[in-house]
């Protein structure tokens, strides 16, 4: 294998690992996919070291190794891309894809998200069903629906302008709680506390938390801890939003 081929393969593998990390795959999956893709493309070994915001990858073939570092940035969770990359890895392993096809498929990947008009009502319905599951009455569920729909609208609109995620969560929690406490202010429902608890559930950083614990369980302790820290920060900033809204509404002092 010539040096430039090894360069090329290493670039593709590290690109795949970078995309996987950026769109929210767990470390074990990143390591597994990049190693399998590397072997399938003809490398003798792939070693990868992941930290919270960068990754280092070494590829080994014929006693010659190339080490390369990439900066990774969080792009929000996108399972479509993770799924696509896993498929590319499997197809390469089966011998259906060579280096050129991998390059073509990887360069064609672009993040697509669900449009706002589906996302907003769906999250409203989700939080309304949480409220129902916690034992709230119909009026409470309706309040939850409107509060979290408007909250989700705010969240998506802010995210479009690339604001800091922490700021986004604080503002969204503020708006959501402001609407959800209408049940207290006008005594519309018998269970006024439940809409407030249920409507902010859309801000629970579920994916970072699950990812962080499963990273730590599988031995990637430092990535797990940094993800845990991120999830905690997100929770704290939404709590700040909730608190300000509740104090404005005079619910506690």
């Amino acid at each position, binding site marked *: 294998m010539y040096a430039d081929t090894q360069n090329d393969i290493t670039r593709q593998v590290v690109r795949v690992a970078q995309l996987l990390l950026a769109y929210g795959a767990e470390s074990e999956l990143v390591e597994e996919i990049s190693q399998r893709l590397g072997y399938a493309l003809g490398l003798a070994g792939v070693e990868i070291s992941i930290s919270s915001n960068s990754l280092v990858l070494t590829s080994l073939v014929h006693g010659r190794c190339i080490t390369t570092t990439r900066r990774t940035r969080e792009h929000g969770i996108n399972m479509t891309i993770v799924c696509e990359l896993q498929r590319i890895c499997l197809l390469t392993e089966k011998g259906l894809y060579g280096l050129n096809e991998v390059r073509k498929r990887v360069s064609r990947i672009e993040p697509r998200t669900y449009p706002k008009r589906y996302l907003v009502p769906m999250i409203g319905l989700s939080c309304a069903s949480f409220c129902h599951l916690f034992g709230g009455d119909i009026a409470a569920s309706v309040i939850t629906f409107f509060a979290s729909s408007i909250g989700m609208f705010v969240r998506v609109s802010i995210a479009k302008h690339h604001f800091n995620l922490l700021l986004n969560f604080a503002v969204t929690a503020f708006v959501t709680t402001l609407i959800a406490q209408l049940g207290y202010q006008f005594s519309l429902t018998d269970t006024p506390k439940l809409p407030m608890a*249920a409507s902010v559930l859309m801000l629970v950083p*579920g994916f970072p938390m699950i990812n962080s614990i499963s990273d730590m369980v599988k031995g990637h302790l430092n990535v797990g801890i940094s993800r845990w820290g991120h999830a905690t920060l997100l929770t704290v900033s939404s709590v700040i939003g909730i608190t300000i809204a509740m104090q404005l509404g005079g619910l506690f002092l």
Partner: protein
Amino acid sequence: MMELLLALLNDAFFSAIPAVGFAMVFNVPKRFLPYCAVAGALGHSFRTLLLHIGLPIEWATFAAAALVGLVTIGFAKRHLAPPLMYAVAAIIPMIPGTYAFNTVIALVQLTAQSEISPELTSEVISNGLKTVFILGALSVGLAMPSLLYFRTRPVI
């Protein structure tokens, strides 16, 4: 018996909706959304059944999450997709939202009144412990199949 069945169906339906909603936030491809719904409904109604039998909520959550992990590995093998894609959306309905909310609100109240009151402190501690242990049970339960059966080989 009939009542229990109705309660379980109610549970399954109303936990399938959040599973799909959050799967959309995580941008799960459209063709996999029904599977997220199935896994979410199965997990949450199984937990309700265990709670009905009288298991403590932590153990019930652990068992339900392990069931979700098992089911989603089946889906993943069929579609060649990462199992966590279905699983995280499916366990969202089991996240201890009210416990976490009560903990944080009590904590903020404790800060605001600048003296230690036993009621608020006990509320913080009991709700906080429940939150932490349920979250731990969820994610360790989810990892259970790959810790027990897929120790040395990849899932797909």
